[in-house]
């Protein structure tokens, strides 16, 4: 049996080249997820990307590839779509209703009104400032001497309503420093960071009356944000399965659908 015969036929690849991580998803011709992988976008080991592509090529007969994310132009696949289009398509592959999608990514927050077919009805992104995004959490947590992996757990133990006022990430770090001087408990600091993010999201124009689905890398590591958002926004809010891979899934789905047209 030749190498080609071992491959799974008729597959579609989505690559989400995000600001922090690059995600790969392969779907079959019925939309089933067959493969997913994540690597650091700017890893020193630049051959990681090629290794993944080699593995995908070895195992799957890829018909079409769609790249997305800020680095979408760096890969010359069959098609390129923005991460908003792909987030809408990815969530719609899981829930086929009229809905809102909130994607909290490494450098931005996107709010998307998505129709049952996965098309974007309208969208809103935070302004140029990255406050409230993954990069913001990483910076602030470092100043607070919090491990990213323990933030969620610490925050759940607090009832504090203290939050960071500053929009500016650098000034927010200064606020955290002030909290530490005052001896604010680490649990309250963790919750305060989340509250400031939720406050930022709650001020964005989220379409009313629609169920909300959360996706993106941040929600994967900080699921407590969902609980706080539900408190603030009072809509039905669900974290989609594998939230970090939703945009790559959407890209794979768009390449699959484009082939069937």
């Amino acid at each position, binding site marked *: 049996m030749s190498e080609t015969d071992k491959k799974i036929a008729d597959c579609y690849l989505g690559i989400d080249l995000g600001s922090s991580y690059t995600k790969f998803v392969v779907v079959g011709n019925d939309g089933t997820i067959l493969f997913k992988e994540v690597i650091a976008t700017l890893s020193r080991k630049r051959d990681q990307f090629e290794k993944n592509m080699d593995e995908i090529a070895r195992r799957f007969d890829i018909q079409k590839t769609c790249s997305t994310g*800020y680095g979408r132009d760096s890969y010359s696949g069959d098609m390129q*779509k*923005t*991460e*908003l*289009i792909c987030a809408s398509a990815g969530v719609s592959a899981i829930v086929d209703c009229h809905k809102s999608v909130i994607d909290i990514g490494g450098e*931005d927050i996107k709010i998307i009104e998505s129709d049952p077919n996965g*098309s*974007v*009805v*309208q*969208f809103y*992104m935070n*302004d*140029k400032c990255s406050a409230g995004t993954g990069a913001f959490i990483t910076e602030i947590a470092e100043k607070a001497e919090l491990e990213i992996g323990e933030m969620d757990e610490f925050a759940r133990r607090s009832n504090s309503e203290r939050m960071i006022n500053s929009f500016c990430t650098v000034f927010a770090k200064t606020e955290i420093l002030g909290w530490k001087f005052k001896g604010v408990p680490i649990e309250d600091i963790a919750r305060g960071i989340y509250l400031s993010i939720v406050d930022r999201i709650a001020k964005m124009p989220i379409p009313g009356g629609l169920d909300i689905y959360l996706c993106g890398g941040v929600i994967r590591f900080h699921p407590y944000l969902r609980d706080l958002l539900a408190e603030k926004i009072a809509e039905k809010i669900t974290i989609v399965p594998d939230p970090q891979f939703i945009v790559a899934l959407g890209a794979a789905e768009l390449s699959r659908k484009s082939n069937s047209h």
Partner: protein
Amino acid sequence: MALKSQVVLKDILKTYFGSLKAPIAWCTSVGPAEILRALGFEVYFPENHGALLGASRLAGKYIPKAHQAGFSGEICSYLTADIGAWIAGETPLTALYGLKSIPHPDLIVFNTNQCREVDEWFSYFGREFDCPVVGVYPPRYLEEIGQHDIDNVVVQFQKVIAVGEKVIGKKLDYERLKEVLRLSRDGSRLWKKVLDTAQKKPSPLTFFDGVILMAPIVILRGTQTCIDFYEEALEELTALVDQKFGAVPDEQVRIYWEGMPIWGRLRSMSELFINNQATIVASTYCNSWIFDDFDPEQPLASMARAYTQIFINRGEETKLAMMRQMLDEFNIDGVIFHDCKTCFNNTNSRFGLPKRIREEVGVDTLSIDGDLNDLRFFSDGQSRTRLETFIEQLKAKKQDAGRKSNV
């Protein structure tokens, strides 16, 4: 494809800048330039210089010099770029047209119908050149324009005339003013016809052509040169319409641009829209130099009305009505609002207008952050993601509507 008119324009601009010899008056771009021309001044427009600094991407070099001189980074970046260039003792006019410096003024006139920054900007140069400065301060943000508003501005124009007469040493010839105003009106009408060729599908020109072609209606308004140029441009564009030539190949969506151009990104933005089969067919900006109400028989009153009733000087209800008409005439699929960091007055996305356009007119809108000259306030990556998503959203809606109408 570059329009032939754009090539002709280069010579016209060279001649214009070469002709700027004393007595010279500086004037705001939507100010009473006709009065100054009729008095016998050559007229120079600092806003044009500001745009040139932006388009040549020199603004980033000069803006910090204005900051050092005490001008905030959050005020008009035409002002900061222009004053910064002056402090540096440089101008792109040297390389382009051989001018040693910007033309020195004998008189400075401004009209705050667009913003108050021009007052501070032009007054700064009044001090630098020790030259008379006359400001026209029309009533702002009007819905209706009453006779008392017109009278108010006419009185202020009379002051411009009085100071101008003193500087140039002769009385204003009102017959000459009527003639200049007729030339302005005719040029303006032709400019409107040029812009209206974009009502055709596909459009033979885009916003990015418009911001180049508009130079004569700004700096040569009231001259025969301006009229001759737009007659030629109109002939060229009409021929392109007949050939069904589209400035954007395979035009799929038609867009309205609200707000200032991002001068330092004209080329890359133009390419982005071409690559996504989207044409910006109309804009508030290019249409701001259409002055239908110029009447040579009532020169001062009609100028007062025309210069006071511009979009930027109107109330929100009137702005909505003006945009509604444009969106209909140009068959617009979506509106892009440029939220221009340093130009509060030419930013119309901050009081709910995009939402009202969406809900009351039924046209999708998008706001992008940027600036006319200060590229520190513009993010290429963030903007590209927004713009490409918006265009895709518009395409999907059109396809969906097409499918439904075929059922």
